[in-house]
C-alpha cells in the first residue's frame, strides 16, 4: 500500500506537472502574436524601400507606410480596408508599400496567394489582385486556390495563360521569398506589421494609422514649412535604383 501510494503520488504529480506545463505554454504560445495590435515593438525597418516595389499612392510621398502582410491571416484581412482608406485619403502624402510575409506552414494558401499577386504585378495589376484576394478569402482558403486565382485573374482582365505560367515561375517565387527574408531581417513578430517611415507602428486600425499619419504630417510641416511634398527624410529611404 505504501509503495502503491508512492507510485500514485509520483506519477500523479508528473502527469499534473506536464499537463500544467502544456496548458501554460499553450496560453503563452497561443497568445496570437499575429493579432490586431500585437506587433507593438520598436523594430525598425532594415531594408530600404525601392521604387520597384508595390507602391500605392504618390511614389515620392513624404510618408511611407510599409506593410508586411499575409493574405490568409485574418488580422491582415481585417486591417486591409483601413489601410486602403488611408491610401485613398492621403494620395499625395502617403505611399503604401506592400511586402509579403506569408506564414506558410500555418497558412497553407498564403504563399500561392502572394505568388498570385506577384504574377498579377507582372501584368501591372498587383493592387487589383491584392484587393480581390482579400475580398474573396472565404472562397479560396480551403479550395484549390491556384485555379481560383487564375479565374480571378481572368475576371480582372489579365492574360490568364501568361498568369498561369507566371504564378509558379521561379521569378515570382523569388520575389515573395525576398520579402519574407527582409521581414525576417527586420525581426517581425507577427502579421500585419506596419512601419511608418521605417519605425514600427503600434496599431493597424484605420484610426490608429490616421492618428500616426496626422502626427507625422504636422511634424514634417512644422519642420520644413513651405515644402510639403519633399521626398521622405528618413535614413532608410532610397528612391533611386
Amino acid at each position, binding site marked *: 500500500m505504501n509503495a502503491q501510494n508512492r507510485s500514485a503520488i*509520483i506519477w500523479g504529480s508528473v502527469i499534473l506537472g*506536464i499537463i500544467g506545463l502544456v496548458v501554460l*505554454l499553450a496560453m503563452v504560445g497561443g497568445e496570437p502574436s*499575429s493579432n490586431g495590435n500585437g506587433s507593438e515593438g520598436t523594430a525598425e525597418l532594415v531594408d530600404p524601400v525601392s521604387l520597384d516595389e508595390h507602391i500605392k499612392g504618390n511614389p515620392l510621398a513624404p510618408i511611407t507606410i510599409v506593410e508586411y502582410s499575409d493574405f490568409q491571416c485574418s488580422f491582415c484581412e481585417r486591417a486591409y480596408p483601413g489601410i486602403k482608406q488611408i491610401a485613398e485619403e492621403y494620395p499625395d502624402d502617403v505611399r503604401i508599400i506592400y511586402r509579403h510575409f506569408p506564414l*506558410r506552414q500555418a497558412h497553407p494558401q498564403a504563399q500561392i496567394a502572394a505568388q498570385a499577386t506577384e504574377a498579377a504585378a507582372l501584368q501591372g495589376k498587383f493592387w487589383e489582385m491584392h484587393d480581390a484576394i482579400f475580398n474573396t478569402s472565404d472562397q479560396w482558403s480551403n479550395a484549390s486556390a491556384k485555379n481560383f486565382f487564375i479565374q480571378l485573374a481572368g475576371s480582372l482582365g489579365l492574360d490568364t495563360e501568361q498568369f498561369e505560367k507566371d504564378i509558379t515561375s521561379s521569378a515570382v517565387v523569388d520575389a515573395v521569398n525576398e520579402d519574407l527574408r527582409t521581414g*525576417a531581417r527586420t*525581426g517581425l513578430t507577427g502579421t500585419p506589421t506596419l512601419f511608418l517611415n521605417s519605425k514600427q507602428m503600434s496599431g493597424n486600425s484605420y484610426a490608429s494609422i490616421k492618428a500616426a499619419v496626422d502626427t507625422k504630417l504636422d511634424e514634417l510641416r512644422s519642420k520644413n514649412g513651405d515644402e510639403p511634398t519633399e521626398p521622405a527624410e528618413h535614413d532608410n529611404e532610397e528612391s533611386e535604383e
Partner: protein
Amino acid sequence: MKKAKNNHVVFAILFLVIALIGFGDATYLTVKHFQGGSIICGTSGGCDIVTTSEYAKILGVPVAPLGMVYYLSVIVLSVLYLDKRKKTSLKLLSKFTVVGLLASSYFVYLQLFVIGEICYYCMGSAASSTLLFLIGMVFLKKHGRQKWIV
C-alpha cells in the same frame, strides 16, 4: 550498493529535468505550429523561416510534436525508474538518447547549411537532446556493464 542507487537517482533526476525543459520547448514550438502565430525570437528572426520551411515536416508529420513525444518518453522512463527503481529503464533511456542526438544533429545541419537561418527554440531543443545523450553515455559507461559483471 546504497551509494550506487543514490547515484542512479541523480541520473534519473538529471534526465527528468532536462527532458522537461526540452518538452516545454517542443510544446511551445508545437503550439506555434498549430496556432499559426509567428515566433518571437531575437533580432535575426530566423524562427519563422525555419519553422515554416519545408523541413519542418518529415513525410508530412510536423517535427515539433515528434520532439514532444521524444521528450515525453524520456520523462516517462526516468519517472519509471524513480518509481520502480529498475535499472533497466535507465539503461533503455540512455540508449534511447541516441535517437534524440541523431535527430537534433540533422536539424542543426538543416538550419546551418540548408535553410541558412537559425531558430533559437530549435537550437535549444538540440542542446537539451545533446545533453541527454551525454548524460546517457556517462551513465552507460558507469553502470552499463554491471549486467555482465553480476
